[in-house]
């Protein structure tokens, strides 16, 4: 229990570190909302190592902290809705009784739903459904960044499991590696 809480704290710090690192890389596609989503590595990894409950808590803490540190508080609602929808979608896929989809799919779906959540919140705030035109573009870029994050998480989780530091006890999760 204590180990899990400590790990959750380290993961949150790592996510904020990754968010900061991502801000240092100047990638500009001309379309707002396209990000590599490095912090998603932490969400996917924590989902496998600590379980759904911890990953949801880490996600909320990470979004609030990185918004306060790097973003404007006005953007909190977009980030929070994106982050929560993303982690909810990933938990749902992990909870499918049979291991139909692997960690790669979980990450891709998480990235896509992150964008969907942000667009939904933005559409709701400005009351303009025209923003939905952005959605197909953001979904495609979400798939690409989600693939990247998925492969990184796959090797990270496998490595952590093999090192013996974090044994993946959940059989359901183990089948998805």
């Amino acid at each position, binding site marked *: 229990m204590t180990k899990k809480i400590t790990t959750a704290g380290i993961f949150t710090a790592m996510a904020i570190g990754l968010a900061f690192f991502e801000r240092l890389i100047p990638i500009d596609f001309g379309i707002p909302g396209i990000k590599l989503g490095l912090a998603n590595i932490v969400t996917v990894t924590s989902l496998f190592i600590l379980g759904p409950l911890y990953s949801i808590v880490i996600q909320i803490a990470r979004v609030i902290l990185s918004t306060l540190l790097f973003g404007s508080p006005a953007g909190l609602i977009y980030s929070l809705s994106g982050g929560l929808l993303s982690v909810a979608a990933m938990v749902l896929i992990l909870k499918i009784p049979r*291991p*139909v*989809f*692997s960690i*790669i*799919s979980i990450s*891709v*779906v998480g990235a*896509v739903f992150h964008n969907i959540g942000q667009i939904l919140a933005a559409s709701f705030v*400005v*009351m*303009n*459904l*025209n923003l939905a*035109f952005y*959605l*197909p*573009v953001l*979904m*495609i870029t*979400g*798939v690409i960044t989600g*693939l990247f994050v998925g492969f990184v998480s796959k090797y990270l989780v496998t490595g952590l499991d093999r090192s013996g530091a974090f044994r993946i006890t959940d059989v359901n999760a183990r089948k*998805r590696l």
Partner: protein
Amino acid sequence: MDYERIIYIVNRKRNINDIILIIMLIVLPLAALSLNLAFGEKPGSDSLVVITVMGELYDKVPLNQDTVIEIETELGINRIEIKDGQVWMSYADCPDQLCVNHKAVSLTGGQIVCLPNQVVVSVESSIGSLDSISE
């Protein structure tokens, strides 16, 4: 059939599921995008050219009606032309000429801005009642 073989088949099947999901997630948005480009934003009778001068609404003209609009204010002169479902700024006496060099706009949401003369030309959907809330 040994254990390794079963694991291999399970893994392969799962990979196929992954690939199907990822292809779906790429194909569906692409289909939505192309449908949108084919039917969604065509300059039709529902598109309006909204001209704003110095922050105030100047005129609303249907995009499918060919006209030339001259705007004269104390800030300067602008000429806006609408033809074949496209709108562009054909003349402006502003120093930077950014608006004149801007390519013609036809899709909903497209904008041409002449900052020195404070003229904003934007294409909007006339049925978009939701737009009014955000204004």
